[in-house]
């Protein structure tokens, strides 16, 4: 069928692409002749349309396209059926049944409804039809009272016919009351016993508490004594230790004092022995005065030596000149006047000259007597103080 496209409204609500239309009914059987289009389409009730799936669609048992059912499907179905039957049977068996009848008895089914109903194989049937009246309010349904079936039979038990209550009730009563009394007695006894127990316990606990207290007191006392003792002992030990230390210190000090009493004198003694402490006067004398003294002595000695040397020179001079003169004297023996005059003057000169110092080993006379040719000729006049080292050396 060609869909009529509806005119689209501007904006507005959303509309379906195609307009909704009623579902045409599908005839069960095909028409023998193709109908002309003048016949208006037959619209059926959609609720009774066979083409619409009813119920849930997720577990539908849809037939496949081919009409042939699957053999597997058939098997499965059969199995399911069998299983269902088995299940039902099992359930039936499991269903709790009333216990079997005791020996000599038999269970009978009993109807317990208000009105008994006769059960028979054949159920009587009758067709009845009726027509409802005009709409009236449905009257309340009458109470269903099924027809009565069976025969009513009654019976009546009068008092005293079955049993004698008083007699029958005695043992029961006895038992009941006895048991009750017994029970209550027991309960009372139990209560008493409990009470006794409690009181005993209490007494015992009091005793125990008292003892505990006593014990604690004694323990406390003991502990205090012990601590006191410890403290005292520690104190005493400290005191003793201190005393010992003090005694040791004193002893050490006394010992050190006596031991090292001689230290300082011996140190100074050693240093003095080794020359570190010297008498400054002595040292000064030794280092300052003595060298000067020695120098002066040296100078003096040199001077005297010089004097001696000079003297030696003098003497040598004189002796040599004398020697010359005497030599000349020999030559001048011819002229006695001149000779004697010169001899006298020479003699005077000889006597006038002081005697030579000890250093001169040579005497004048030997010089005169023994002519020494090696003596240099000197001038007749005595020389001044000029040392001649060579001759000085000879001395």
């Amino acid at each position, binding site marked *: 069928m060609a869909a009529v496209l509806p005119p689209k409204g501007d904006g507005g609500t959303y509309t379906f692409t195609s307009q909704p239309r009623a579902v045409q009914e599908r005839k069960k059987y095909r028409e023998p002749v193709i109908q002309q289009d003048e016949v208006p389409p037959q619209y059926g009730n959609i609720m009774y349309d066979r083409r619409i799936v009813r119920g849930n669609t997720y577990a539908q048992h849809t037939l496949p396209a081919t009409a042939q059912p699957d053999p597997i499907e058939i098997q499965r179905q059969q199995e399911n059926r069998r299983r269902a039957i088995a299940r039902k049977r099992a359930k039936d068996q499991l269903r709790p049944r009333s216990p079997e009848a005791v020996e000599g008895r038999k269970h009978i089914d009993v109807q317990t409804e208000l009105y008994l109903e006769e059960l028979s194989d054949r159920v009587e049937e009758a067709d009845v039809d009726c027509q409802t009246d005009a709409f009236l309010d449905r009257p309340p349904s009458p109470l269903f009272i099924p027809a009565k079936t069976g025969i009513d039979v009654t019976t009546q038990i009068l008092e005293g016919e079955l049993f004698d209550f008083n007699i029958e009730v005695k043992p029961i009563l006895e038992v009941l009351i006895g048991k009750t009394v017994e029970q209550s007695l027991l309960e009372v006894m139990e209560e008493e016993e409990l009470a006794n127990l409690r009181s005993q316990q209490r007494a015992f606990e009091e005793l125990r508490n008292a003892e505990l207290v006593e014990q604690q007191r004694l323990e406390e006392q003991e502990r205090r004594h012990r601590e006191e003792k410890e403290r005292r002992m520690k104190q005493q030990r400290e005191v003793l230790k201190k005393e010992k230390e*003090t*005694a040791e210190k*004193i*002893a*050490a000090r*006394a*010992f050190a004092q*006596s*031991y*090292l009493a*001689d*230290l*300082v*004198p*011996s*140190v100074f*003694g*050693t*240093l003095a*022995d*080794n*020359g*570190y402490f*010297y008498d400054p006067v002595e*040292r000064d004398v*030794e*280092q300052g005065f003595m060298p000067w003294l020695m120098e002066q002595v040296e100078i003096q000695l040199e001077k005297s030596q010089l004097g001696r040397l000079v003297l030696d020179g003098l003497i040598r001079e004189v002796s040599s000149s004398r020697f010359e003169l005497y030599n000349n004297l020999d030559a001048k023996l011819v002229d006695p006047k001149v000779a004697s005059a010169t001899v006298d003057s020479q003699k005077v000169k000889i006597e006038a000259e002081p005697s030579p110092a000890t250093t001169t080993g040579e005497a004048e006379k030997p010089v005169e007597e023994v002519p020494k040719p090696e003596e240099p000729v000197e001038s007749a006049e005595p020389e001044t103080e000029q040392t001649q080292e060579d001759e000085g050396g000879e001395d």
Partner: protein
Amino acid sequence: MDQTKRPLLIPPEFANYAEHHGVFDMYKRLLEQLIITKPADPVTYLIDLLKRENDDVPQIVILGPPAAGKRSIAKLICAKTRAAHLTMENLIGDAELDLREEAENCINSKKAVPTELWSKIIEQRMQLFDCVKKGWVMEGFPQTREQALALQEKGIYPKHCVVLESPDTVLIERASGKRIDPKTGDVYHTTFNWPSNAEIQSRLEEATGCTEEEMITKLIVYHRHIDAILRCYDKVLKKVNADQPKADVFAQVFTFVCSQLRSNTPHTPRVVLLGPTGSGKAVQAALLASKYNLVNVSCGQLIKQAIADETKTGQAAKNYVQKKIMVPDSLVLNILKDRLSQLDCVTRGWVLHGYPVTREQAEQLEKEGLVPNRTFFLDVPNDSVLERLTQRYTDPITGERYHLLYNPPRTQDVKDRLQRHGKDNDDDVRKRLAQYHAYAEELSDFYVDGQHINADQDPHTVFETLESMIVEPLPKRLQ
């Protein structure tokens, strides 16, 4: 606390400790150095000094005329003691640069190096580590009294001064044979000290300045100065005759170097006299005790005393004595300990003889704290002992003791009635001698500081030797 309630008891351990560690000498040395150096912070200086631990280093000066052998002796001593060897040449060589130049200038210009320069050089050299730690041997310096005085002023003084003396003629002769090894500087001699190694022999050359005239001038200079120098060192001086073989000279010098000066340390002698029977221990002990007021502790006497006093130990000992067995060590030790711990022994000192005999006894004695500070072994040959003991007689009437050889009785009457002690016969004496000798070696190993004395002389000579060793400090043992 007054003295009556609690008398002052100085435990003897103090004295032992002080003696053992030489406390007095140490303090003396510290004080001396302090006075010489006068540091700004004395306490730190003292601590440094103590840390140096150089109490025993040798400080020796060797003087003598040329060719006396100073170099050889100095080298031998340095080799033995590992001290530093200082001579005039190597002092200059080792000195600081400026001082060395100055000194060399002086030498090159043939002038004598001035004394202040010497004292500076020496002062510097003495600060060096090897002089401080190992000591020094100075040879041939000082040469004049001025130099000696300069050294003393600086506080540098030797512990020992050795002068090798010899007649001049010997020296001049010796000088002619002197040869020097140029490599090591050792001095050899053609006659007295020729090296065995051929290589050294080939190297030797003649020493300079050894002609006769030079020797004579040197000797004159030496004699001019030596007396003055010796006056500086007279407290530590020893003159050794250098005209002997080198080994003898060295032995004498070394003994002297090992000996120590008399110090003022307070000293309570605790002497142990060891020796065989008849060596004169009791005699010497009596002499020592009488002269130095020591307590004479004779082990045998003590035991007899204990027995006589009937003390507990005495009675225990009595059993042994009666059975003629040796009293066990523990008993004897107890008796001794009691006696030696008494106050008079501790304060006056004691001389013990007759104990210990074996090494264990000696060890036990030491463990008790009764350590002697002088031990003497009186060595006598066995024959002398026999002679001394077997001829020892007593006159029973007068009580005089005689010896047939050394102190014979005057009259025949006395001689007739003389009696000898039962234990003084030959066999017993020999037995006792054997007993002593069995233990003698161990004992002398144990007492390393023990001095062996020849006791085969007359008692007073031996006594003098003992005295000198007790009064002087023990010679130190150089490694």
